[in-house]
Every structure is written in structure tokens, then in C-alpha cells.
């Protein structure tokens, strides 16, 4: 299943947030969306997942999602969005219950995703007992449990400290190498974009428009072996964005 963004524009009341966005998310690819603060990245991701509707344009599903997929478009949120009153297992079972998956069937799935995210020992822990990195791993496990056709990630690492971020980035790469998941990954961290993205969509400041789409051809597993190449891509992106970021930073909010 591919996803096609078709001429998406959006305004909240009088504020134009997005302007005529067009691109395609191909199955098995990680697309990174980068752009300065407030340019509409999160809004765009909400459109892609059907949580909100753009004023113009539409998001199209091309092809049917795999039959076994319980929730084809699945989010991973910046703030993890775990229910604090449920244990790790309970949080995963939450998204299965409504599909009528309970008991041993659910246990099998939960054990599997916990193993894949190296969380097997933490099934009974409450979110408050976990570090940020672990929480995000639980959120990833939960997402995997519903066999998504496409993962929608909104700055999944930006609430983590940089060391944990580094560790989780490795985990996401490993996971992709094993499972070749499709993903739309929003970030404003250029380093993440060049480490994880097969293709990077660069948005301008608000109203967000596509400024550039950069393909990164190095296979994910080899990227750390080519620091100079990556740095070059990153510098290219940073040059595209630097002035916009500065201007966005200087803007007075609701003065």
C-alpha cells in the first residue's frame, strides 16, 4: 500500500498552515519530513492518518493494506501516549481488545512484540517506572502489535535525551532492516533525517510548502560507515533551512 498526498492545503481559521503539499509514501520506504517549528508537520501527519481533514486536497491509499494489518495507519507519538494506569502489557493489549483479540491470542502477540523491542522483562512495569527511551520502545511495540501498513511517527525521539536518542535510532534502523516497514517520520532533527530517511521532504516555514525532496541512496545499514557523505547531506539540508529556522525562531508568538 502506498500513500499519496494530493494537493493538500490547510488553514486554521485565518492562519494558512499548509500550502499545496504533494508527495507519495512508497511501501517499504521511510520518508522523513523536516521543516522549521510551526510549519505544519504535525498537522500534515494528522491528515495522513485520518485524524483530521485538510481544507483542500486529500490523502489517498493506493492499493489495499495487507489483510493481516489490524490498523494500517499507526502512529508513534512524541510524548509516547501510553496510558499511565496500564502496565506495559496492558497498554499493548488495549489496542488489541477492540479487535476482539484477547486471552492467549493476545498474549502471543504481546510476547512477540515485546521480544522484538527487547522489552520482554518489562511487561508488568507501569509507565512511570520506565525511562523515556523505554516508554518509546513500548509505544513502538504497541504499534507493531497491530501490524501497521505504515508507521506515522511525529518526532518520536525528540522527548529523549541525546544518548537515548542515539540508542533508539539504532533500534529503528535494526527493526527496518528486519521488517522493512513503511514509515512517515516527522522530525526537525536533520541528523535523524539523514540517518533514517530514504527520502527527505523539506518544508518551508508556515505556510508549509515543499521546498525540496532529497533522496538518500546509501542503504540504511551502511550509513554510519559514511559519516562524510551523511554530513554532506545534512549540511545541504541545514543550508536549505538555516535562514528559515532563524526567522521562525525570531517570530513573536500571538504578540
Amino acid at each position, binding site marked *: 500500500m502506498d500513500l499519496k498526498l494530493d494537493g493538500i492545503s490547510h488553514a486554521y481559521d485565518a492562519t494558512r498552515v499548509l500550502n499545496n503539499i504533494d508527495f507519495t509514501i512508497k511501501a517499504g520506504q521511510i520518508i522523513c519530513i523536516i521543516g522549521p517549528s510551526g510549519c505544519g508537520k504535525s498537522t500534515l501527519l494528522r491528515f495522513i492518518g485520518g485524524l483530521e481533514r485538510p481544507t483542500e486536497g486529500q*490523502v489517498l491509499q493506493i492499493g489495499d493494506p495487507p489483510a493481516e494489518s489490524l490498523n494500517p495507519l499507526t502512529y508513534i507519538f512524541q510524548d509516547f501516549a501510553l496510558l499511565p494506569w496500564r502496565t506495559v502489557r496492558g497498554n499493548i493489549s488495549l489496542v488489541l481488545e477492540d479487535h476482539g483479540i484477547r486471552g492467549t491470542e493476545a498474549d502471543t502477540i504481546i510476547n512477540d512484540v515485546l521480544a522484538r523491542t527487547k522489552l520482554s522483562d518489562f511487561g508488568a512495569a507501569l509507565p512511570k517506572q520506565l525511562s523515556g527511551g523505554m516508554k518509546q520502545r513500548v509505544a513502538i511495540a504497541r504499534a507493531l502489535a497491530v501490524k501497521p501498513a505504515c508507521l506515522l511517527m511525529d518526532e518520536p525521539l525528540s522527548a529523549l535525551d541525546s544518548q537515548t536518542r542515539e540508542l533508539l535510532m539504532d533500534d529503528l534502523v535494526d527493526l527496518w532492516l528486519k521488517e522493512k516497514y513503511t514509515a512517515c517520520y516527522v522530525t526537525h532533527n536533520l541528523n535523524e533525517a539523514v540517518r533514517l530517511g530514504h527520502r527527505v521532504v523539506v518544508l518551508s516555514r508556515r505556510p508549509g510548502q515543499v521546498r525540496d525532496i532529497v533522496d538518500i541512496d546509501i542503504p540504511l545499514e551502511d550509513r554510519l560507515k559514511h559519516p562524510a557523505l551523511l554530513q554532506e547531506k545534512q549540511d545541504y539540508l541545514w543550508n536549505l533551512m538555516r535562514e528559515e529556522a532563524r526567522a521562525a525562531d525570531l517570530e513573536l508568538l500571538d504578540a
Partner: protein
Amino acid sequence: MPDLDTPTTVQTPSAAAVKPVPYRGGGFAPRPSRLVAPIFFVLLFSLWEAGSRFGWISPIVLPAPSEAFQAFMDLVNSGQLVLHLEASLMRLALGWVGGTVLGLAVGLAAGLFTLARGGIVPFVAAFFPIPKIALLPVFIIWFGIGEESKVATILFGTFFPTVIAVYGGVDNVDRGLIRMGQSFNLGWWSIVRKIILPGALPALLSGFRISASIAIILLVAAEMIGAEYGIGAYILLAGNLMAMDQLVAGVAILSLLGLSVSWLIGRAEKIFLRWRA
């Protein structure tokens, strides 16, 4: 998940089903609508009025709103409303200001000093839940039957919630800001004045909102003690005489008083808490 080794798609768009992604957001965001409330109230009052007119609601059980309004107009025209309001507002003002000033001082002490907190917090916890009508006989003996006991009733009623709001507010001032003040060598009193008090202001204002409602609620109790004038006294008399129209009119006046005070505090919040994000 598609089990591919390279990131390309298997299906050509033309051959595959194309449909928009399903929408599944929205909801869970009720808003205070500007339209519903007036309609609702108009409907409520019309039904009530009609019920009274057509005799579905016995006048003993509830007067028609128009009758209550008539009672209110009588009060206005006879000039008594001013007298009642004057008396009540004076008591409210004195009691509330007194309770607030004392509550601020005591609450601040509890918020700043371990010793004070140790004494004040359990004391307040024990005394706050005592119904003030139970204490009326005591107040009469302590303060007599003049204005003092009425003011004291309201003062007592506002003192305890103010203390709680103040020390709660002080507790909730961002410790990071206080630490910042210390790190710049600000004096103790500077920290209290420039960081703690403004930081506790939101909690203080919402405490004022509560203490003002309590003060208004206590007006009736306070005016049980030999008051000739006052909204509370008017309501009590109406209750005594089973004059339901006057009772409803009096209660409506209290309700309006409460809404006005709440509106005033809302204004104060808008002005003094402009800095809130």
C-alpha cells in the same frame, strides 16, 4: 508488512484500489456554545412559566417566574432592594476583606515556615469543615448580635479557604524560579515579593473565587442573627412566610451576586494574569 528487500512498491497505482484514508478523528471536544445556553434558559423559563400558568405546577410548590419577577420588582420599587443590598454588601465586603487579609498572612506563613505550617495546616484541616451555622450561637455570644457577628461569620468562612489557597499557591510556585532567585543572590524578601507572590497569584485569584462564593453562601446564615436588612434576611423572612415568589426572587439575587463576583474575578484574572501562556 510487505517483505521486500528494497524500498519500492509492488503495485502500480493504476492497477490498485485508490481511496482516501478513512477519517477517524474529531469529537471529544465539547465547547461552551454561545447559542445553547440562552436557548436552554429561555426554554426552561418558558416551560416553567407555562407550567405555572396552566396549573401543572402548584403555586405552593413553585411560583411562576413572572411572579418571582414581580416580587423582585416590588422590592425594587419599594426602595427596599437598595437597603437590603447595602446591608449585605457591607457585611460581605468587611467579612471577605478581613478573612482574606488574615488568610493571606496566615497562609503565607504556612507556605514559608516549617514551624508555622506544622501548626496551621492541621488546625485548618480540623476547622474548615465545621458548618458555620453550627457556630452561630457561639458567634452571637462572642461578637454580640450586631454587625460584628454577621461579619465574623463571613470572615470565618472566608479565612480557612484563603489559607488553603495561599499555602497551596506558594507550594506550587515553580521551585526552579526560586532557585534562580537564590542563584542571583536575591534577598529573602525580594524572593517572596518578586517571585513567590506573583507566582502564587493565579492560585490566589482562584482562591478568591472560592472564598467569594462561600461568603455569599454564608450571607443567609450570617443574617439569621437578628438582621433587619440584607438579602439573606429577606430570604429568611420569605421562607418564614412561605412567600415562594419572594424566596425565589431573593435566591435569584444571590445567584446574580455570585455571577457578578465571579465575572469580576474573571476580569481581574484577565488583567493580572495576562502573562500566562
